[in-house]
């Protein structure tokens, strides 16, 4: 037998798994085996379904046949009710894995006179258990006996005996009960069941209902004590508890491209961290969905899977709109890589949204999840609830290593929405898309507010959407502030013109300089030649003086000779300079 129970050698409480997603997590293994469990709750909160699932899973997954003793619905009704969940009770009954005993007790048929007991019921149950060798029993709901039989003393005595007897038989029992005003159940059923009590609840808040489950009591075992939301949908009951309160998810150093080249560059040249959560906030029409769709496209292009939740648009609308920026999302949907889930936010409560999301993600196993957009969910719960739900979703995705992108609408003038402040501390990367109005034009800009563990760019980029996709351009940053669009183009043109003028100026100055240089060169050359001329003149003057001197000396001698100056004649024989002294 494939019975999955905890090790009995360790003297632990044996548990009987319910097979209901999440319930075994909360109860840490299932219901107490061989003992009765009370499942109580108001009308229509899923008691019967939970009990039936317990039997069906027991029969199909754990090899434990079960008896369903119904006091309110006939076997045919029960079969029909759960057929939509894919439970084929007829086959199970035919295979002797399930036995439904409808206990018909119509009050008008009854007259009570004197002493009696419920031996008939015991014998029925006993026989049913024997026939299919049942390990599980459901009594749904035995309380109806109280309302139909008038002697409560007999009822109590009989029920005490019934549960003693069921324990002896070692069957695991679920007994359902209507929730009463004061006590847990209307007829105080909890007094018979002291081992495990589970309470179901179906609350309406702001016109949306949320189902919740709580383990009120579990003798001999630890259990999750919170109220957990649960779903009833096409696969039956599922509970999505966030049982991990510890932040111990595996962090990845691996990055995934954003699908926008320059955004990758802004994010340290790598993109988003795998398994990180990205918040994309911006006012209406700033291109949040486009950035998200680009990520989806990039993911699918690399062969990954992407789950796209939209609370605003239908898949067709998203695909059409994205085709205008060059994203062919249809092909990925066809290839089964992209899955859309679109539903109006107010259709379910927050918990239901969360639970559905988690279920889809669990089934689809995407690498990237996109939630477009969070602000839609604001209406479904209080900020505290929203934050709690987001935390659970983010933690869940992180544990799974799924990269998640949440877009969020912010109102004009208020750069941060309510949801932003609620989840800002939870996200790793926060991109802000902004509208810039300038010269009667509207432009978009993108900047990174934060990106944990990354040397990201601090600069804003102009964000342009075209049929080629999303492009990021540098914005003009100058003394007059940040400019985008035609203002940026105009500014750039002005800059270029200025540059031309500046270049001309420089050229002219260079020419001037050259001219000056040439002039000086020429002047230097002129001076050089003047200098040489001067030198030559000085040489000539010296020569002349020398020659003059010689000629004067010759002349004096001539004159002396002619005057017969003896001294002079006599001096003709002595050196010339001796003659000078005698002259005066």
């Amino acid at each position, binding site marked *: 037998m494939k019975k999955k129970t905890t090790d009995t050698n360790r003297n632990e409480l044996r548990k009987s798994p319910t097979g209901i997603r999440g319930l075994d997590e909360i109860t840490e293994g299932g219901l107490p085996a061989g003992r009765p469990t009370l499942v109580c709750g108001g009308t229509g909160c899923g008691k019967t379904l939970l009990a039936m699932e317990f039997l069906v899973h027991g029969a199909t997954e754990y090899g434990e046949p079960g008896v369903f003793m119904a006091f309110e619905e006939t076997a045919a009704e029960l079969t029909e009710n759960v057929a939509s969940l894919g439970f084929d009770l007829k086959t199970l009954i035919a295979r002797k894995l399930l036995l439904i*005993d409808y*206990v*018909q*007790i119509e009050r008008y*048929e*009854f*007259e*009570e*006179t*004197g*002493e*009696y*007991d*419920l*031996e*008939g*019921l015991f*014998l*029925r149950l*006993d*026989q*049913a258990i024997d*026939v299919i060798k049942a390990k599980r029993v459901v009594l749904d709901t035995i309380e109806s*006996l109280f309302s139909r*039989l008038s002697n409560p003393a007999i009822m109590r005595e009989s029920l005490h005996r019934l549960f003693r007897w069921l324990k002896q038989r070692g069957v695991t029992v679920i007994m359902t009960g209507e929730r009463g005003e004061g006590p847990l159940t209307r007829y105080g059923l909890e007094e018979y069941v002291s081992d495990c009590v589970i309470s179901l609840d179906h609350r309406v808040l702001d016109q949306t209902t949320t189902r919740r489950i709580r383990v009120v009591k579990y003798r001999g075992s630890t259990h999750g004590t919170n109220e957990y939301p649960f779903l009833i949908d096409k696969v039956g009951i599922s509970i999505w508890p966030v049982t991990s309160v510890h932040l111990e998810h595996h962090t990845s150093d691996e990055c995934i491209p954003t699908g926008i080249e320059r955004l990758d560059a802004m994010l340290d040249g790598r993109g988003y961290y795998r398994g990180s959560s990205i918040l994309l906030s911006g006012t209406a029409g700033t291109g949040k969905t486009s950035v998200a769709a680009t990520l989806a496209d990039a993911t699918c292009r690399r062969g990954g899977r992407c789950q796209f939740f939209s609370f605003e648009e239908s898949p067709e609308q998203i695909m059409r709109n994205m085709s205008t920026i060059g994203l062919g999302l249809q092909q990925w949907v066809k290839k089964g890589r992209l899955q859309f889930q679109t539903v109006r936010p107010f259709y379910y409560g927050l918990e239901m949204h969360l639970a559905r999301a988690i279920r889809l993600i669990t089934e689809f196993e995407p690498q990237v999840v996109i939630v477009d957009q969070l602000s839609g969910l604001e209406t479904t719960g209080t900020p505290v609830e929203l934050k709690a739900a987001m935390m659970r979703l983010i933690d869940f995705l992180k544990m799974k290593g799924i990269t998640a992108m949440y877009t969020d609408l912010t109102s004009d003038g208020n750069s941060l929405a309510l949801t932003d402040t609620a989840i800002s501390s939870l996200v790793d990367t926060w991109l802000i898309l902004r509208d810039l109005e300038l010269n009667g034009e509207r432009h978009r800009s993108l900047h990174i507010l934060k990106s944990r563990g990354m040397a990201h760019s601090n600069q804003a980029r102009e964000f342009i959407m075209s049929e080629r996709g999303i492009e990021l351009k540098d914005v003009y940053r100058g003394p007059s502030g940040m400019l985008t669009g035609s203002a940026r183009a105009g500014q750039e043109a002005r800059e270029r013109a200025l540059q031309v003028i500046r270049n001309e100026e420089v050229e002219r100055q260079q020419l001037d300089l050259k001219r000056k240089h040439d002039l000086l060169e020429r002047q230097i050359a002129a001076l050089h030649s003047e200098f040489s001329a001067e030198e030559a003149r000085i040489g000539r003057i010296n020569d002349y003086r020398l020659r003059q001197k010689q000629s004067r000396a010759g002349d004096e001698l001539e004159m002396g000779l002619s005057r017969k100056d003896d001294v002079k004649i006599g001096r003709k024989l002595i050196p010339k300079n001796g003659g000078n002294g005698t002259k005066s």
Partner: protein
Amino acid sequence: MKARPRRNSRLFKAPDWHLQLYVAGPTPKSAAAFRNLERICEEHLAGRYHIEVIDLIKNPQIARYDQIIAVPTVVRKSPPPVRKVIGDLSNTERVLAGLDLRRHDSSPFVSRKGKTQL
């Protein structure tokens, strides 16, 4: 229909009244129920009834088919509609009411008595 001689009625003709008494083994309650039922029938349906005692311990599956939860239980199989009375049948008035015997009763005394009590 005319009343037939009491002793031979069961032998020659199916009686008008078919009553089933469900018990779980020979308990004092079962015995008391049988005694009480027989007494009432003798008083009110002399010669027109048949009591079938069904022991659920011997045939437990019958409890499910016949929708029995408490024992002892008397079921009026015929005439229709089906009526049930549970308990040891110690309160004759309630048995009469439960099995809807008064309308079929020939005794004006009991009928009147029943009316005054109600």
